[in-house]
């Protein structure tokens, strides 16, 4: 089995690659520092959100701890006109898309099923049904292709990007997404974060062979990348995006990483996970290796300080904002079910409004 593509190993050592280095040659110290800061910030968001869950401010939180490089490397490679369809775990990608910090937690406070305007940030509402979003991404890419044909342009197109996990690879929808993407040769990138687990199930329950083998059978090129190496992730994502933009069709990326935390704050991974495994992967931390590398490149203590400051700022924003979040009014229940008028539901809304009023005036029934 070949090793995943890796440009920065777990010790922070940079390995040159004729094939991949050209894709990241613009990444100078400033750019690397910025990626570093992003990773530190999203890790802090994770820590804070986990704490807020414990304090009862959030009902649930799905940490991405350990997957920062996979998400920041790919998320930062995107263009603003690209469109992301993700699962619930891609909070770092959402951060890259410009989603407000507070909007990252609204869903998990139970305020809404989607906190941001997908069209403003180029990212759909987080998807809970495993794998379903891969079809949406493929359809969006079909639409990009249609637009280009209609407008008589070609090349440099926007790209649809689907994020999903190792577990999702087993769902029929993901197979069908590969079929449609391949048949129509549309600009979509399938970004699979293999974090080794689907809740408690190790990836071997989903497959007998590496996940990266899967897309080839559909005629979709795939690469396996060290998902904890932000440089390699950047490189392979850029290549896939470039292929898509230039009419080269779909690509698949398996980012090999590890979910260092629980599945969600409701999960207890000690029931199914060996502490030794956790330790092993802890040594491959995506942030630590980039720090080592940057320090080798001459970064001083201000690297840490600046990142910490950015993280603090975001944490403060989150904490300051959370208590101000208001519950939605009762009649919101009915507000957005249909785009057009609906007499049946209008009646239910009116009935319920009357009920609430009566209740307020007269107290409980009977």
């Amino acid at each position, binding site marked *: 089995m070949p090793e995943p593509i890796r440009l920065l190993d777990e010790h922070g050592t940079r390995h040159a690659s004729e094939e991949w280095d050209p894709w990241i040659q613009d990444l100078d110290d400033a750019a690397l520092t910025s990626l570093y800061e992003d990773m530190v910030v999203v890790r802090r968001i994770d820590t804070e959100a986990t704490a807020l869950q414990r304090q009862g401010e959030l009902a649930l939180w799905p940490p991405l701890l350990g997957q920062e490089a996979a998400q920041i490397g790919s998320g930062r490679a995107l263009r603003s006109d690209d469109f992301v369809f993700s699962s619930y775990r891609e909070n770092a990608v959402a951060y890259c898309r410009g989603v407000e910090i507070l909007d990252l937690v609204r869903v998990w406070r139970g305020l809404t099923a989607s906190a941001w305007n997908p069209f403003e940030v180029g990212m759909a509402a987080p998807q809970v049904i495993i794998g379903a979003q891969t079809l*949406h991404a493929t359809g969006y890419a079909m*639409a990009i292709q249609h637009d280009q044909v209609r407008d008589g342009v070609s090349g440099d197109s926007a790209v649809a990007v689907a994020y999903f996990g190792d577990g999702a690879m087993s769902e029929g929808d993901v197979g*069908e997404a590969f079929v449609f993407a391949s048949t129509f040769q549309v600009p979509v990138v399938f970004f699979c974060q293999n974090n080794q687990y689907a809740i408690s199930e190790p990836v071997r329950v989903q497959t007998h062979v590496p996940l990266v083998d899967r897309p080839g059978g559909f005629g979709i090129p795939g690469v396996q990348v060290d998902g904890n190496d932000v440089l390699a992730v950047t490189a392979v994502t850029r290549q896939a995006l470039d292929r898509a933009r230039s009419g080269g069709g779909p690509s698949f990326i398996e980012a090999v990483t590890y979910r260092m935390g629980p599945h969600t704050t409701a999960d207890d991974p000690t029931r199914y996970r060996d502490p030794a495994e956790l330790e092993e992967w802890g040594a491959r931390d995506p942030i630590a290796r980039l720090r080592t590398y940057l320090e080798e490149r001459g970064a001083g203590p201000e690297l840490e300080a600046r990142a910490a400051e950015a993280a603090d700022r975001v944490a403060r924003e989150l904490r300051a904002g959370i208590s101000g979040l208001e519950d939605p009014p009762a009649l919101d229940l009915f507000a957005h*079910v249909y785009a057009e008028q609906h*007499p049946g539901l209008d009646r239910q809304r009116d009935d319920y409004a009357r009920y609430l009023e009566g209740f307020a005036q007269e107290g409980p029934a009977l």
Partner: protein
Amino acid sequence: MTTSTLTLAKALNAGLRRALADDDHVLLMGEDIGKLGGVYRVTDGLQNEFGARRVMDTPLAESGIIGTAIGMAYRGYRPVCEIQFDGFVYPAFDQIVSQLAKMHARTRGIVRLPLTIRIPVGGGIGAAEHHSESPEAYFAHTAGLRVVSVSNPQDAATMLRQSIASDDPVIFFEPKRRYHLKGEVDDAVALGDAMPLGAARVALARTGDGPAVTLVTWGGLVGVAMDAALAAADEGVAIEVIDLRSLSPIDYDTVSASVRATGRIVIAQEGPGEAGLASEIAAVVTERCFHFLEAAPVRVTGHDVPYPPAKLEKHHLPDLDRILDGVDRVLGRHGAQAPAPPAAVR
């Protein structure tokens, strides 16, 4: 003049052609809808006319069809998806129920998914297994969808255009047994002037002053209901036939107005009775018209069995006699099927 005599299938074809011509965001997706023109030829000639990009043969995967159509709608398209037969919609059930129906509410109204899903529906055509299902109730029970069922060529053309124009997802049922029914069709009716998509139509007004019954049905059974009404008229029973057209929402104003006048209602549907639309209608009508009812609403439905092989379908589907038997029962007439004694519970 745009009026001509068309079959229901051709009327749908005309409606699709007009929708494709009027709005270049409209596109058609489905299995065998291109060169073949669909197994019922509803899309006949459209790929030739509008090209393979706007009339797309898709891979054989229903979840894929609906899921990618959702993605296309995200970018402003208005996909019209064909599901080849009623029994093949279930692989797409998750995308319809968990995605299509919920997206507008999920995004607080930001993402609109103006899909139309065309589904040939129902039995009575001697077909193989899975080709005669009546899944209306599954979709009517799903909040966020609109569900309609057409019964005649003019409605076929107009309601299809209205469905495509609607910013909500619409499940659009086409009764197979009526595809060849002919009628006058104006395929260019101004949508604003047409009867609203959600409105029921009194297909046959009550005449005479004998005992009166409201007979509610839709789609494939409208013709049978009309025949039953004519037969009943000979016997002095005045039946008012309501073609529901919209199954979600249901136009209860029209239904209730009729029941308040007649005091009796029979509801006929092809699908199994248990938790079907007839039960929904019976429950709501009872709520709204309780003091007007002379008798309990009577439901004449398919039995609670998987759709049977062709040689048995005549015993499964409500036909003229079973509907008339229902009318007898709601009139409390002698000879009508007596309510069974309580069965023992196992």
